[in-house]
């Protein structure tokens, strides 16, 4: 096993089972509308309150993939704080993989209730697994995390299990 991968694997294993509760903040309509347009999804349920109410919802709401797709909830990290791969080094969910390139492998999402404008959201973040593997192009780590998004009353909104490849 590559020494640095071995060290990083053990470092991440020490995080297993530890859950961090992180404030996401208040969901803003303009931001999820931008997200919908970026995915070329002009569904009126994301934009039009009256249309949403006529379909049984309290108001327009965010596209299903919005919460789990957004990588940062701050105004944005300064350029000098980014790692070489462009990911922020000071993100509370950042994995301790300094020197490795991180690639998303996929997500498994459960949707519990729509996410409307002005919903206060917190995220419970945990690393759920890390495995060393021998891939076709060399050694790598497969890292699995869980992000559980809750509203201000603690009700689940979205549960996301996501895996990454680090090499």
């Amino acid at each position, binding site marked *: 096993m590559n020494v640095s991968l071995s060290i990083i694997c053990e470092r991440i294993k020490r995080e297993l089972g530890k859950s961090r509760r992180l404030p996401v903040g208040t969901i803003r309509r303009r*931001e999820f509308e*931008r*997200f919908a*347009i*970026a*995915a*070329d*999804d002009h*569904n009126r*349920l*994301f934009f039009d309150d009256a249309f949403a109410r006529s*379909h*049984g*919802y309290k108001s327009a*709401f965010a*596209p*299903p*993939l919005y919460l*789990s*797709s*957004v*990588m*940062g*909830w701050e105004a*944005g990290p300064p350029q000098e704080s*980014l790692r070489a*791969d*462009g*990911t922020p080094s000071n993100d509370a969910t950042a994995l301790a993989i300094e020197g490795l390139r991180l690639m*998303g*492998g*996929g*997500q*498994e*999402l*459960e*949707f519990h209730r*729509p996410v409307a404008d002005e919903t206060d959201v917190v995220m419970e973040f945990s690393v759920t697994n890390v495995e060393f593997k021998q891939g076709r192009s060399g050694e790598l780590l497969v890292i699995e995390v869980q992000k559980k998004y809750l509203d201000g009353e603690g009700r689940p909104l979205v549960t996301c299990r996501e895996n990454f490849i680090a090499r």
Partner: protein
Amino acid sequence: MAAKIKYDAVKAGDAIPTVTIDHVSRPDFVRYAGASGDFVPLHYDQTFVEAAGIPTVFAQGMWTAGCLSRCLTDYAGAGQVRRFKVRFARQVWPGDTLTCRGKVTGKSEKHGEKLVEGELEVVNQKGETTVKGNFAVAAA
């Protein structure tokens, strides 16, 4: 809530609506970077990707997943999606044409809710699968 599909009318093998993305472009990735905060330069910085030995920029995986999710929101209604799983199989490049499609594989009930389940994929113009997944949506 407004379920668009009738549980009793759906059967395994039924196709769900196809979404086609013609000519994927770099501005698609840049717009998505701004909306999602995914500023990894592999998705927009030609100098960076060439230095990494990659011929050109490629799409954020969740951008492609977002395009695929439109099949479900069109089919079942945006508030009816209960489960969505995607695995990124291959990169999406500028100039690609993508077809997002899926089919029903079964039905079930969970917590008193009727669910339609199925599989999904995104294929490029060469017929290669770029994203593979599965889903469950609520039905009336």
